[in-house]
């Protein structure tokens, strides 16, 4: 019941926050997108599943949400392996939890081609998670391409921060 209420609240708040020009978007995904758009609107922890406490514990590896990549690479480097596996185990143990994986690239080259490259990064994290016990329905891998950089400018220091996959929990 609490969960239902919180979803209703999120839907209501999302509706209020969106512009009047916002169209009706048919959600062809697993039907949990509303949880995402409410992420900025949840002022308190009330109504959240209890597993969020664990996810946001700064002492837990689960609070780490970004995998970074070498130039032209899509494979999860060994230093991020434990991070990805921890999230995979968490998903396995919490079947109600689900994530969206957002792949990102640096800004060199075609925007649409970069979108496809970012998708490869997100897909590689997804595959690793599924091999470690997470279910396909719990994971949506998408790409933001070069559109949402962490760091601006041209140069390796900016580019290395932008080559990443971010792990977002739905409803967070």
């Amino acid at each position, binding site marked *: 019941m609490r969960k239902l209420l919180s979803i209703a609240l999120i839907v209501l708040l999302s509706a209020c926050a969106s512009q009047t*020009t916002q169209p009706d978007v048919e*959600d062809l995904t697993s039907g949990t997108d509303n949880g995402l758009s409410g992420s900025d609107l949840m002022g308190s922890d009330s109504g959240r599943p209890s597993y969020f406490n664990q996810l946001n514990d700064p002492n837990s590896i689960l609070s780490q949400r970004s995998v970074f990549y070498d130039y032209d690479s899509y494979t999860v480097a060994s230093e991020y392996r434990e991070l990805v596996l921890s999230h995979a185990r968490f998903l396995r143990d919490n079947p109600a939890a689900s994530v969206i994986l957002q792949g990102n690239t640096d800004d060199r*080259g075609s925007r649409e081609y970069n*979108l496809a*490259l970012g998708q490869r990064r997100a897909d590689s994290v997804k595959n690793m998670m599924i091999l470690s016990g997470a279910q396909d329905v719990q994971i949506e891998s998408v790409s933001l391409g070069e559109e949402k950089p962490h760091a601006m400018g041209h140069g390796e220091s900016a580019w290395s921060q932008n080559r990443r996959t971010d792990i977002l929990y739905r409803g967070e």
Partner: protein
Amino acid sequence: MLMSIYCSKLMRGLLFLLLWLIIPSLHAQLNIEIFGGGASRIPITIVPFAEENRLQQSITPVISADLQRTGLFRLIDPAGSSPHAPVEVVYADWANRGVNALVIGRVTHLSDDQVEIQFRVMDIAKKSQLTGLAITVPTTQLRAAAHRIADVIYEALTGDVGVFSTRIAYVLKRGNKYALQVADADGYNAQSIIEYTEPIISPAWSPDGNQLAYVSFENKKPVVYVQTLSTRERRAVASFKGSNSAPAWSPDGKRLAVVLTGQGGSQIFLVNTDGSGLQRLSRSSSIDTEPNFSPDGRYIIFTSDRGGSPQIYRMPVTTTESSNAERLTFEGNYNASPDYSRDGKSFTFIHRNNNQFNVAAQEIGSRQVEILTNSKFDESPSFAPNGKMILYATEINGHGILSAVSRDGQTRQQLSVQTGDIREPAWGPLPKWK
């Protein structure tokens, strides 16, 4: 012979569409600078029209700017001489000044809000009229009338279709705000179609110019929308699990090619413009993206890294999916973002050359490649509907601007806004009356 074509009704319809249905918003006046120019430019004089100075919006400066931007004309000042009718033209004088073509005309005020513009293009060598037209327009649509006149002059002197009455679409980023804008081809009358705080990319014009397809990230992932300019009504055409991007219209306007990741990888699909009838087109283990239809609708050219680096390929549009495609580009290890010319004989694309991303064009038959720019970060080239210019995004001093280069690489022009980054240009189709 003065042809009298009263196209006010048509024009009114067109501009009504433009002005009425689009949100007036982020004011983005584009400034235009022109570089270079061909060696054999046509010397032309445009005499300010009689009674033009009573108008709120002058006409001949707009015509002059249109013609100058093509790089095909050399504008010669009338230097005090101001004929408005054929009998007032002293051909020998203009011949002595090296003028080939002379444009003269007159504005007649029909009422407070309506004028008739008559103009003639005089051939100085033949001492005769080349073409002429009378246009009746509301005074609110004088720029559109000027573009129409520039089209007629351009067509009479070059034999090609003029594109001064077309529109362009692009994305303007200001701070954290993204606006999909539509403007006249000269950058004026910029209007926001939609504004968001999340990125918008890949606008694509429907063949009739009434709709734009684009990719919005407002739902934390890329989703393909189609929006009608006149009603501002929009719908999600591809919002499947995973990423949805790279919309391209079929020439009949009935279907879109899109790139989806829901079935694994980035692959090309066809979908009806109402979101129904999804059909997979490409099947590969590589990236297949940036589809673009041939003008006859039989082929799609696209970017794929199936050969190890991004290159441009061509595949037939069929009712079954295919893993086969013909590779078109072979020079260099990065060729992307293809866009067909309207005659289907060539395509423009981005070619990486020594870590520079430049606009290039390739003939499909001969495979001859020409690199047309020498900047660093060129993106998303888009052919003008007459195939004579290519609009693209580039970067100057860290700012995104639009630029256009002539197909022969001889003339470049920059379109910049005062503040903000401008990117993802798409050149719209010819208006319906063309």
